[in-house]
């Protein structure tokens, strides 16, 4: 279980996150919504440890991870699909996927599970191509697949549907649902694509200007309510 308590963050002097709190439970999909530039990515980076937290606390399965390095969090079972894909451009697709298993023992990391290839057949086709040569959408698929291979307890997805064709968005939706239903994994999904998030999320958090302005169960919060917070 991920627990975020009163997290604050600054870029220089601009206060980007202002006391953000939220929790993500196992088997649950939490959608993080908000307009452009409100600090969603910043929050996710703080959770992953890419950015330092100025004040506040992040804990994972009861353990305080606020000060841990990203790789330590990855080892603790948190996987991250960043905005902008961030694949390893000059490694092959296959090597990129192997990197997803960096936290596993080398025996486990020896083979790439067929599951991801089934989900993203294009990756199998292109497994010997360099990651950087893939199209934007293909790279996004690669980034998601890489995170799944990590067998995480929590997966953080920053706009995973960006640049992906509709049919695959549907597939990704199915995967997320499946992962959620399997019950051993928490999902933190940051999305602009409201319909997509709405379909998957158990809970919503809406941010504005670095603050959580609304949160609650998907069932309780009506679509209208949420959309109102997102309107410009």
């Amino acid at each position, binding site marked *: 279980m991920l627990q975020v308590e009163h997290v604050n963050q600054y870029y*220089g*002097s*601009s206060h*980007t996150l202002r006391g953000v709190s939220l929790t993500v439970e196992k088997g649950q999909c939490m959608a993080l919504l908000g307009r452009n*530039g409100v600090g969603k990515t910043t929050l996710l980076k703080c959770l992953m440890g890419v950015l330092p937290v100025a004040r506040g606390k992040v804990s994972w399965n009861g353990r305080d991870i606020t000060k841990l390095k990203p790789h330590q969090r990855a080892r603790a079972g948190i996987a991250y699909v960043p905005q902008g894909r961030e694949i390893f451009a000059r490694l092959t697709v296959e090597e990129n996927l192997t990197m997803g298993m960096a936290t596993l023992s080398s025996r486990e990391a020896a083979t790439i599970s067929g599951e991801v290839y089934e989900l993203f057949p294009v990756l199998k086709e292109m497994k010997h191509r360099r990651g950087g040569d893939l199209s934007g959408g293909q790279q996004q698929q690669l980034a998601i697949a890489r995170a799944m291979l990590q067998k995480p307890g929590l997966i953080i997805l920053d706009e995973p549907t960006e640049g992906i064709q509709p049919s695959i968005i549907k597939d990704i939706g199915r995967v997320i649902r499946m992962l959620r239903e399997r019950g051993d994994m928490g999902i933190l999904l940051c999305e602009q694509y409201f319909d997509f998030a709405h379909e998957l999320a158990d809970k919503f958090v809406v941010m504005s*200007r670095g603050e959580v302005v609304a949160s609650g169960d998907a069932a309780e919060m009506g679509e209208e309510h949420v959309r109102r917070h997102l309107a*410009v």
Partner: protein
Amino acid sequence: MNARIASRKSLFSRRAWTALAVVTMVAAALPLLNLVFPAGHALHISSYVLGLVAKFMCFALAALALDLVWGYTGILSLGHGLFFALGGYAHGMYLMRAIGRDGVYQSHLPDFMVFLDWKEYPWYWAMTDNFWYCMLLVVLVPGVLAFVFGYFAFRSRIKGVYFSIITQALTYAAMLLFFRNDTGFGGNNGFTDFKRILGFDITAPATRAVLYIVTLAFLVGALVLCRWIVTSRLGRVLQGVRDSESRLMFIGYDPLWFKLFVWTLSAVLCGIAGALYVPQVGIINPSEMSAANSIEMVVWVAIGGRGTLVGPIVGAFTVNGLKSWFTASFPDLWLFALGLLFILVTLFMRKGILGLFEDLKALRRKTPADAPVEEKSKEAA
């Protein structure tokens, strides 16, 4: 709609103009102090110090030139020593000719030619007895070489370290070429033993003073010129070349000519620096083209603060000043001190000495360098 949007950034702020004027005046006063006050007088400036400052000004001019291409355009040259040396050699040819028959062999040829049994000047020495022709060479030789080399390199889109390394190869090749005695530039010894310039005794204090003032004028002039360039829209294009060359192409600029323009200009300025350097230190030889010399120039720029124009001047004075001091005061240990300085500056003064001043200033004003996000505008919309 917005008064803050100036059509062109101002060349210098009022404060900067004042500072420039004061520094220039003080610098210009030094040779007077040397000439007017007798040695031993409290206000006397020794010829040694004067010579040192003059030399540093030449280095500063070279550093300034390098900053134009490196700091603003992102082209790291590891071969600017070549342009410096070429300017020096071009002027050196005149100075050699000006020795006349006062050389050891009392020939019309420079000593090294006599001694290699040359009977006459090779073609490339033609007309070098004319001062103004040599001055033209000072500009043309580095300029044309830079233009041609740059044209091919930039056209092939050679970038980054690839460019840096071939500039290094270029200066290295030139160094080997000039080392050859057969090349006709005095080999390893280069040109030295100059006697007069435009008829004046080159070692006379008055001549030195004039050379000093000329150097100062060029340095200040070059600073203003460079500042004018980088504050123009062209300056912004150059920075665009540095940060995202392909983006620049997609909005319709041809980076080739922009790069070529600053590159050539920079080489010419560097050549001028070399030309001013040679009569004042009395020797030009191929070791000026060694890879280490060019790297040192880069170090001056980095230490002073790249992309600031003034920084490289400060850097050249600082590094060379320290070097002069250290080599005399701690002859056994000075490399440790200098090496440590380089490391510390890199680690703790990311923007060089000038950046340090700016940070201090910012600290005093308590305004962070990074303007806060203006959420207001968003709300207004």
